[in-house]
């Protein structure tokens, strides 16, 4: 949990025919085993960043190194083996006709022998609790289930990093919870590094570290506690404040003695209880 797994140095990127750059001189590191949330309003450059990390786009300036390998046309296949990506639309990344075929797709691409494939398809589906859906077709699955299959497809390749590119934004609350819980479990058990690109602040609050993007620039970086102290500033950036933080603030205004803003409802309730029940 200390050495940088990904380092991004002075990266700038513009899409063809667009005047304002999508990313302006971005630099930061991603540490091994951490959960990093990259937040920002739509169009802040956060998804472009994800595409750069996987070599789906190349920066015009600056450099990116993943697992010690500098990203270039020649190294992308090497890097893609280490960086798995789950995209926003559950339908548009489901390649196979059934769950098992879809998970196998990445393995087939990397020329994994069949007997290894069979085993990895099963174990990675078990990890996302979809092990009993082997022969289901995609249109019989819910959005959350499809996204979990996508995660299994990524896991099967045993990557060092998973990037969730707004992977929960098209899901209903149940699907969102399913995906987030799955990712959290994986991170704990498999020591996988997670980069989640999101505008869901509840999701970001669970990360180890948050990067706030605004108009292509790295606006702020810090722990969830630090970031959510920004308060009104976040709303100005088109984001929101997580409910427990908002609630702590309102309670303080109404005269409830709280020493700080809390990131989870549990912390808030515990603080209320311990500081007041003794009176």
């Amino acid at each position, binding site marked *: 949990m200390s050495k940088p797994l990904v380092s991004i140095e002075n990266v700038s990127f513009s899409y063809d025919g667009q005047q304002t750059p999508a990313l302006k001189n971005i630099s930061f590191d991603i540490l091994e085993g951490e959960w990093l949330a990259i937040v920002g*309003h*739509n*169009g802040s450059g956060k998804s472009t960043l994800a595409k750069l990390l996987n070599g789906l786009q190349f920066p015009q300036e600056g450099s990116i190194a993943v697992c010690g390998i500098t990203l270039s046309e020649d190294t992308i296949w090497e890097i893609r083996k280490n960086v798995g990506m789950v995209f926003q639309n559950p339908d548009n990344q489901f390649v196979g006709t059934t769950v098992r075929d879809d998970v196998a797709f990445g393995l087939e691409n990397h020329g994994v022998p069949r007997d290894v494939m069979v085993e990895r398809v099963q174990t990675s589906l078990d990890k996302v609790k979809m092990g009993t859906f082997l022969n289901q077709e995609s249109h019989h699955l*819910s*959005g959350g289930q499809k996204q979990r299959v996508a995660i299994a497809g990524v896991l099967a390749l045993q990557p060092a990093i998973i990037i969730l590119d707004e992977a929960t*934004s*098209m899901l*209903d*609350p*149940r*699907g969102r919870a399913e995906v987030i819980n799955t990712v959290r479990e994986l991170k704990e058990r498999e020591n996988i590094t997670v980069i989640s690109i999101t*505008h869901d*602040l509840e999701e970001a609050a669970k990360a180890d570290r948050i990067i706030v993007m605004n108009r292509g620039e790295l606006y702020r970086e810090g722990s969830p506690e630090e970031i959510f102290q920004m308060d009104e500033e976040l*709303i100005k950036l*088109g*984001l*929101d404040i997580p*409910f*427990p933080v*908002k*609630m702590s603030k*309102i*309670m303080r*205004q*109404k*005269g*409830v003695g709280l020493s700080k803003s809390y990131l989870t*409802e*549990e912390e*808030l*309730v*515990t603080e*209320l*209880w311990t500081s*007041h*029940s003794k*009176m």
Partner: protein
Amino acid sequence: MDISLKNVEYRYQADSPFERLAITDVSIDIPSGTYLAVIGHTGSGKSTVLQHLNALLKPTKGSVVIGSREIKAGRKEKNLKGVREKVGIVFQFPEHQLFEETVEKDIMFGPMNFGVSERQARERARAAISLVGLPEEILEKSPFDLSGGQMRRVAIAGVLAMEPEVIVLDEPTAGLDPRGRKEIMDLFYTLHKKRNLSTVLVTHSMEDAARYADEIIVMHQGKVFTKGSPEHIFSNPKALIELGLDVPEVVGLQLKIEEAFGTKFKKISLSEEELAEMVARFLEGGGTK
């Protein structure tokens, strides 16, 4: 305009091996001017109910009354345009329905289908675009050159330009960032008040249901599980939690506080300020009843 569903049942692909019962014995009244929220899981029958509100689906049993028109099961229904003009639906991801060369033409499409003159439709497009908070210059652009958020607004403008009396919203803010979400929801609420519309909101967001609706219907497994005012629905949060549904965050927090202190507040509060005040007063009183 009043809408009411009477004992409606709907089966998809009736009389085939793929038949599927979607809703059964659903009765709902939506008097003119109501803001109704329909909540429930994906697959609970919410969207099926929604499509009955302007006769996109016809009940396989029971009947639907929309204004003065009755749509009954087992009867051929012709000329439903009159109904559809009065009930506008904003589908989930409505930007997928855009198709014209310019934003203006796309917004004019709906009104002109219902026989509004070109000149009038153009005026309506102008009014609708400013209503959704976009600059007039955008009217000349191709809808496909816009950002996702702008496309969403254009699609909404296309429904508003029909000047419906009832607006049906199916997860209108899905996929938007927090600011976009709030702006769109506020827009519909303002319209609801200003034009005295009926609004039906199908949503997963308990916060939105609590904040905007006068009445909430909870759908579960194709049936109406319960209905009532937000205060009523959320005063029994356990029932919702048992269905696996969320409760508004404020309500959830109140439950946690009540549990921690082993107490019960007089009422369920639906706003953050109210809960904070209740907690403040409770703690001033020494943290006991």
